[in-house]
């Protein structure tokens, strides 16, 4: 087990290194950072000087080696545009993204499971059909359009909810939270729904399918035969069995929710890491781009690692196969 863990950690480190390298190779094509950090009057010669000072003229591998060396020593560099340490900028933005991802996931889970269960139990009802069709809208329109439509309806027309930002936040140590103020909570609603809609559709469909399968298995029939009430059968047995894969997927999805909050954060001007990243891409702020990608890679790799370990512990079949792989 320890050997397995160790191997996975080494692999994880390799993954991070590869992500870093690919990211670096990619930045060459993102555009020219110099033009974004100086005004138009800056002469050609001054621009060339800045490019040299930033080390942008060096070959990609040299730049990467230099960057990797710094990262290993804990230095993520200084943002070109803000002239601030990247680690500080990311740390400031992290709570916003994590709170948004958390709310979106909760929304997706609660609504997705409820709708999924309903659709499985009342498979042929018109409401189930409606749920299924409506939930498909979540994956049939681009996120940015859904977000803007929600803003149009709830902010501009009805004036109920804010259109941008986090509202008032409260600082707890280094963490800023929107959970403790009314405006903070209100500000969370629209972005969470926008971000969670896709996951909600996924979970709803998954729950429905799993429930339909479980409801037909022998032990549910047996439970029914034992004379348990329908409700007890549905909730205590069927739903419970459905939840394992659902929660696994939701867990795996958490990483991608964080990574893909980029568009939602842009639409709602949500001051999280995704927005920082988008602004960095637009301005070719390479230090922010690399640090963000490394961070997201780290989150993914960690989640994968945990899931793999849990699987190995829970499912002997997989342990057998990993054992063989060794």
């Amino acid at each position, binding site marked *: 087990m320890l050997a397995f863990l160790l191997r996975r950690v080494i692999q994880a480190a390799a993954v991070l290194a590869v992500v870093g390298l690919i990211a670096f190779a*990619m930045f060459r094509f993102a555009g020219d950072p110099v033009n974004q950090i100086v005004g138009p009057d800056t002469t050609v010669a001054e621009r060339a000087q800045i490019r040299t000072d930033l080390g942008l003229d060096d070959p990609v591998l040299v730049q990467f080696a230099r960057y990797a060396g710094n990262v290993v020593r804990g230095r993520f560099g200084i943002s070109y545009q803000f002239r601030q340490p990247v680690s500080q900028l990311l740390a400031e933005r992290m709570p916003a993204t994590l709170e948004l991802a958390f709310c979106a996931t909760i929304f997706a889970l609660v609504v997705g499971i409820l709708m999924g269960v309903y659709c499985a139990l009342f498979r042929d009802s018109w409401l189930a059909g409606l749920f*299924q069709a409506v939930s498909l*809208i979540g*994956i049939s*329109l681009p996120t940015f*359009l859904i977000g803007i439509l929600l803003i*149009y309806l709830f902010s501009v027309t009805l004036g109920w909810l804010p259109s941008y930002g986090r509202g008032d936040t409260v600082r707890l140590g280094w963490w800023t939270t929107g959970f403790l103020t009314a405006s903070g909570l209100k500000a969370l609603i629209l972005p969470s729904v926008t971000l969670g809609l896709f996951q909600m559709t996924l979970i709803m469909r998954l729950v429905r399918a799993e429930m339909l399968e479980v409801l037909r298995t022998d032990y549910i029939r047996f439970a029914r035969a034992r004379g348990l009430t329908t409700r007890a059968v549905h909730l205590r047995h069927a739903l419970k069995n459905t939840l394992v894969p659902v929660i696994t*997927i939701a867990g795996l999805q958490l990483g991608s929710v964080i990574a893909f909050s980029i568009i939602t954060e842009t639409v709602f001007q949500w001051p999280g890491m995704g927005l920082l990243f988008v602004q960095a891409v637009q301005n070719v702020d390479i230090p922010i781009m690399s640090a963000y990608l490394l961070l997201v890679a780290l989150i993914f790799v960690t989640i994968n690692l945990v899931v793999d370990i849990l699987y190995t512990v829970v499912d002997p079949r997989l342990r057998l196969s990993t054992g063989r792989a060794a």
Partner: protein
Amino acid sequence: MSGYDLDAGDAPPVPLPEAAPSRLARWRDSDLLASFLGSKTAMAALIATVLMVGLAFASSWIAPQNPYDPAQLDLINSNLPPIWQADGQAPFYLGTDDQGRDVLSAVLYGLRLSLIVGVLGVLTSGVLGIALGLIAGYAGGALDTLIMRVADVQLTFPAILIALVVDGVARASFGGALDVGPLIGLIVVSIGLSFWVQYARTVRSSVMVEKGKDYVQAARLIGLSPPVILVRHVLPNVTGPVFVIATINLALAIITEATLSFLGTGLPETMPSLGTLIRTGNRFLFSGEWWIVAFPGLALAGLVIAINLLGDWLRDALNPKLQ
């Protein structure tokens, strides 16, 4: 978005090969057809899909305007509302956009472009993912580890970023603006590279379960080579989940293409897909020129919902446990 698994669990056991009747006969006698005819939703979804695909591919003949030909656009006709509104004008039944582009024509042409990009993208990612998943699951060992670690790396990169790289490399090597053909190729490759992981993971986990089963052992015993076993015996057992992923991904591919153009690497505004039309049209949401975004949006939503309903039905129909 990408990166979810539909863990199929145990796939249905494959019927042992028999002296097979003709394919058509099998299809006619199968429960599949019966189930299809019994499902109104499936019928409606199929009709809608066929209709839209048909319209899309007939667009060159039926569209009043070729929206890709700049010479046919006239700024004088810009921002006209649909025909039933006060200022609507005759050939522009669904109105025009800010360049004088006929919205109806643009939707038809865009539908075609989006379908091409979506189908090709899904095919690319499907073939790639299934192949890698089969190999990883069957071979195990170092190969499996390598493929799955590559998958981890890949998952980290949003489709958008991969497209940015592919696009950047291509532009750097070809120079200047690309024609629409190569550009579609680029987007297809980007999408293919972004979405293969789900297929690979799903297929891999199914294969790992399947390969311990008796029929695979039997096939191995009678001396069939691994590729034959994989393709002829293991693959059919994982088509269910793969198909479900593919239907959702078709929609995702089309939407991803829209998001790509949002970042300036997708299809150009002069050659709009449905996604591009929505992206450019969404600027006019507040200004009252709703038709510029609404019709492409409806077309996209209709297409995606129809395909997904079809996929749902297929998934249920293919799953013997639900019958």
